[in-house]
């Protein structure tokens, strides 16, 4: 049996506990301060470059990019870190990095508004863009829309690439009704015939990115747009918009199933993959996935340009660009890497299996690899039509620049909801257009005062 003295010596006293906790906390708190001089010296000696970009829909491209960046780093004695996150998380991550004033050196913006929104937080890349233009030809209008501010004459990002938005259709089914989905009117008429046969077409009417692109494409093809060329005056309330809203209403009722109201960005891919869909408006990623899962079905799926309207044929592409933060530790290294990346575009194009479309005129000469001859597709020239994608693509904000206002209209799904309201008879087409005009004006007015 232990004595009382022994017990009191061995037990934890309140004072003892406090002392130990205090000592531990003190050590933990002091550790960084003590090690700081050594750590900062080590950091100063090691050159690093940190890149953040989305997890590409073609995983093979990410793998290629990581190896490409690491190899460049090895050649130049730079430790390169590439982080990939889902594209929907990029805006929140950009906001967090800017608030903290720390993070990556190169930030890949996915979508339209990023470079304009963060103009005061990124390095002016005008000289890099001008250099790339001299070497690789004129920048595409999508690149100018997303990267250039005509008021400040600043390139806040290097236009990287855009993702094209063609139509993917079941040739066998469309042949049966004796049509080809070449115009939006064809989509309405042919879609109705195909829905009657149990194979509807599908454009989402839910809150997701794809319908933001599809319905803008439709508006532009009919001569309507959300704003004018200055990007400051809202022009949505027009007879052309009304015509498109009525068309969408007809397509929804005659050629689609109500399920499109709940769709996310993968739902139309699933419709096509199920064998039940006859046409979707989507990048070729949907086709690539089906090629792996169901080669027989993939052979029946063909790719054609975005449908034309009475005024023009124009699709809203999904743009990507690279910005370099002002707080970046390795600004020059970042710019050097972007220069090198741009000089290797054929490899980029091949690694993305033709998914990334270049934004400078001569980066990938025609005939373009993969698109002109894709050994995995039958026939091998199935994707050749995408060589002309530059002729029929613009992006958010068209005919003006993309910017925070056009981005917020997209973030709030105003155009999609305008279509959905009329399609589901929650409002007449006229009421839906008036509603969208008001909501869009509120957003544009707010940003023009910013």
């Amino acid at each position, binding site marked *: 049996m232990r004595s009382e003295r022994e017990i009191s010596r061995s037990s934890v006293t309140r*004072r003892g506990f406090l002392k130990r906790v205090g000592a531990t906390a003190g050590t933990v708190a002091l550790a960084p301060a003590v090690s700081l001089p050594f750590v900062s010296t080590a950091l100063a000696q090691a050159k690093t470059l940190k890149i953040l970009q989305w997890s590409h829909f073609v995983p093979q491209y990410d793998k290629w990019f990581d190896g490409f960046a690491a190899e460049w780093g090895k050649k130049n004695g730079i430790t390169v870190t590439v982080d990939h996150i889902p594209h929907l998380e990029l805006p929140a991550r950009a906001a967090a990095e800017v608030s903290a004033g720390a993070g990556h050196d190169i930030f890949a913006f996915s979508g339209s508004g990023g470079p304009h929104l963060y103009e005061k937080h990124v390095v002016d890349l005008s000289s890099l863009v001008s250099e790339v233009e001299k070497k690789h030809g004129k920048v595409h209008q999508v690149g100018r829309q997303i990267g250039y501010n005509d008021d400040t004459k600043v390139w806040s990002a290097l236009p990287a690439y855009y993702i094209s938005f063609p139509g993917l259709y079941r040739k066998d089914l469309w042949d049966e009704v004796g049509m080809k989905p070449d115009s939006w009117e064809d989509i309405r008429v042919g879609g109705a015939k195909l829905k009657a046969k149990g194979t509807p077409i599908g454009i989402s009417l839910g809150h997701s990115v794809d319908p933001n692109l599809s319905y803008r494409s439709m508006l532009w093809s009919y001569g309507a747009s959300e704003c004018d060329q200055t990007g400051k005056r809202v022009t949505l309330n027009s007879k052309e918009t009304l015509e498109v809203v009525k068309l969408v209403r007809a397509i929804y009722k005659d050629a689609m199933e109500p399920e499109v109201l709940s769709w996310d960005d993968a739902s139309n891919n699933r419709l096509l993959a199920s064998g039940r869909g006859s046409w979707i408006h989507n990048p070729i990623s949907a086709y690539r996935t089906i090629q792996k899962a169901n080669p027989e079905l993939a052979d029946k799926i063909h790719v054609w340009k975005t449908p034309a309207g009475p005024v023009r044929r124009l699709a809203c592409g999904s743009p990507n660009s690279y910005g370099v933060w002002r707080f970046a530790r390795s600004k020059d290294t970042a710019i050097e890497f972007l220069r090198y990346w741009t000089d290797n575009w054929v490899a980029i194009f091949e690694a993305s299996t033709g998914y990334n479309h270049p934004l400078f005129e001569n980066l990938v000469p025609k005939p373009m690899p993969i698109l002109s001859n894709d050994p995995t597709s039958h026939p091998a020239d199935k994707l050749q039509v995408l060589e002309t994608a530059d002729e029929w693509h613009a992006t958010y904000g068209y005919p003006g620049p993309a910017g925070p206002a056009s981005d*917020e209209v997209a973030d709030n799904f105003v155009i999609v909801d305008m279509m959905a309201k009329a399609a589901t008879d929650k409002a007449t087409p006229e009421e839906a257009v008036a509603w969208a005009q008001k909501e869009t004006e509120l957003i544009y007015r*707010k940003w023009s005062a910013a």
Partner: protein
Amino acid sequence: MSVTAQAAAPRRLARSRFTFDRLEVLGPLFIIPAILYVVVLVGLPFLLALYYSVSAYSIFNPSYTFVGLKNFREVMDSEIFRRTLANTLIFTISAQIIGLLLGKIGAMLLMQEFPGRRLARALIVLPWAVPVSLATLAWLWMFDSLYSVINWTLVAAGLIDAANRPQWLGQEDLAMIAVATVHAWRLFPFGVVIFLAGFTSVPQDVLDAATIDGAGFWRRNYQIVLPMIAPIIMIAVIFGTVFTFTDLSVVYLLTKGGPINSTQVLGSLAFQVGILSGDVAHGAAICLFLFPFLLVAVILLLRSLRRREI
């Protein structure tokens, strides 16, 4: 000189021992981390949000220019916001009602003796323990337009026609029911735990006496048990209301506020405007609409609680 220093050391030690032995010193010392936590992670962000909401701050133009109530007026001009405000109330109230109802039924079942009761009690907290993103993604597949297991079951049971299957996330009314149900599903384990705690605190002799006096199940339930455990339920309601009112994850993951903003709630709209679109000032103004509603709700509930305790 050295003798004086040697004598002073034990005196300092003794004084510090005496200081740490005093409850009025030790008490505040232990509470300081909690106060710091609330001040730094709740108080300061709240004050910052207040300041942002009356400023012109955006990521595009990080200016703290004072604009008064302009942001609030502009936010209220939007039909999307007005609809969002109504949705938030519907979402909160319905999720509370469903969650508490399920919680009560669950607790009543778990009060019964049956084989595997302990395992059932452990499993019931799973919705609470599973990360919200994972759980919501599972629900997303259950509500999927093509592959919904709910629809498949209903079709297989002959209850609905496959051609007219419900679009859980595509029809405005069903979408709200879906998001409220998923949130209630997340809340209900908390309800079960609260009700279980309440039920076990009701003295058995009171229930026995009521039974002898002829009180049946419903009378015992509504006139004895519920009034006795009302203070505990109030705490669950306060917690659940705050938890639901400020939630955006379920809505954002399931519908992103669609279709046609029928499931948009204040949290998701504020995130959309303030973070995704970079308009921090208007995002903060949207967020602050949560505050008066929550304040009034919490004051009413706490008052009612105090009255009952008296």
